[in-house]
C-alpha cells in the first residue's frame, strides 16, 4: 500500500482536493487493490441509486398533494379575482365622500336662503305699524264695530268692510251695515 492508496476514501466521497484527483487517477491505473475498491464502490452506488429511485411514492400522497395544489390555486384565483375588483372600492369611497360634501353644501345654502326669506316674510313690528292702513270710516254700535279699509291693486280699488261683533250681539236697525259683509265700492 502506497501513500496514494490512503487517499482512496477521500477520492470515493469526493472530498479529495482537485489538484490531487488526477494524481490519484494515474495511481489508480496501476494499483489493482484500489481499482477493485473503486469498482465495488461504484457498483454499490449504482445499485443503491437504482434501487432507491425505483421506490415509488404512494399514489395517495401524490393525489393528496395535487388536490391541495388545486384547492390552493383555486383560492389564489378567487383571491386575485377579489383583489382585481378592489380598485373599485377607493373610487366608490371618494364618490360617496364628494356626494356627501356636495349635499351638505347644498343644504347649507338652501338653509341660509330660506332662513333669510323667513326673516323677510316676518316683518318686524315697526314696519307693520308703518304699513298699517288707516280706516276710511269706523262704525260702532252696541254689538259690533265696523271699519272701512281702502285696498288698492293694479286693476281695481276695493274697500273692505270689517265687522267685529261684540260679545252680546243685539241687532240694531240703525247700524246701517250688516255683520261680516264685504262690499265692493269701486
Amino acid at each position, binding site marked *: 500500500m502506497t501513500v496514494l492508496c490512503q487517499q482512496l476514501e*477521500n477520492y470515493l466521497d469526493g472530498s479529495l482536493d482537485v489538484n490531487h484527483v488526477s494524481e490519484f487517477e494515474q495511481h489508480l491505473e496501476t494499483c489493482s487493490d484500489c481499482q477493485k*475498491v473503486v469498482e465495488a464502490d461504484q457498483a454499490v452506488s449504482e445499485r*443503491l*441509486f*437504482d434501487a432507491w429511485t425505483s421506490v415509488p411514492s404512494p*399514489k395517495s400522497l*401524490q393525489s393528496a398533494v395535487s388536490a391541495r395544489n388545486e384547492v390552493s390555486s383555486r383560492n389564489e384565483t378567487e383571491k386575485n379575482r377579489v383583489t382585481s375588483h378592489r380598485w373599485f372600492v377607493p373610487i366608490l369611497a371618494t364618490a360617496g365622500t364628494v356626494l356627501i360634501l356636495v349635499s351638505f353644501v347644498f343644504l347649507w345654502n338652501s338653509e341660509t336662503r330660506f332662513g333669510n326669506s323667513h326673516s323677510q316674510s316676518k316683518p318686524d313690528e315697526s314696519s307693520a305699524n308703518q304699513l298699517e292702513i288707516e280706516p276710511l270710516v269706523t262704525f260702532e254700535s252696541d254689538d259690533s264695530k265696523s271699519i272701512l279699509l281702502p285696498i288698492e291693486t293694479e286693476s281695481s280699488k276695493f274697500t273692505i268692510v270689517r265687522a267685529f261683533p261684540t260679545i252680546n250681539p243685539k241687532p240694531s236697525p240703525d247700524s246701517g251695515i250688516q255683520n261680516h259683509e264685504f262690499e265692493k265700492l269701486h
Partner: protein
Amino acid sequence: MKTQIEEHIDSVFRFALSLTKNRHAAEDLSQECLLRAQQKIHQLKEPSKTKSWLFQIVVNLWKDHLRKKQPNLVETDIATLFAESSRPDETLIQKEEKIEALQMMQALPDKQRNVLFLSVVEQLSNQEIGELLGMNVNSVKASLSIARKTMRYKLITSKENEPTRQ
C-alpha cells in the same frame, strides 16, 4: 404542469422512508412536510435548493416527532414497497437485487444509513449533508466511509454467495 414542490414528492418520501424505516410513518411525514412547504413556499429564497429545503422540513418534523414520543415503529418489509411498481422491462432477478440492496442498507445504523442515502441517492455534498443532519463535515465523511465499506463488504459477500443461492 408539476409545481416545484411536486417534482420532489418521490425524493421526500424516500428520505422520510430512510429516516423512519416505516412506510406509513414515511407517508405521514411526507404529507406533513409537503403541506408545510406549500404554506411556507414564500420563505424559499433559492428555488434551486428546493430539495434541500424540503429535506430540512422533513428532518425538523421527524425531530419534533421523536421529541414528543419515542416511536415504536415496525420496520416495513422493503419487498412490499415494490408491490405497487411493476415495471414491464424489469426481470424478477433485477427486482430481487434491488430489494436485497435496500434491505442491506436498512440494516445500517441510522446515521450511516441517512448519510449514505443523501450522498449516493440524492447526490448531496458532504457540506449539505452536514447542514441538514446537524453534523460537521468530518463526521459526515467518517460515517459515509464506514457505510460504504460495510455496503461493499455485504454486496461482495452476497455476490460470492450468488451461485449457491441460485
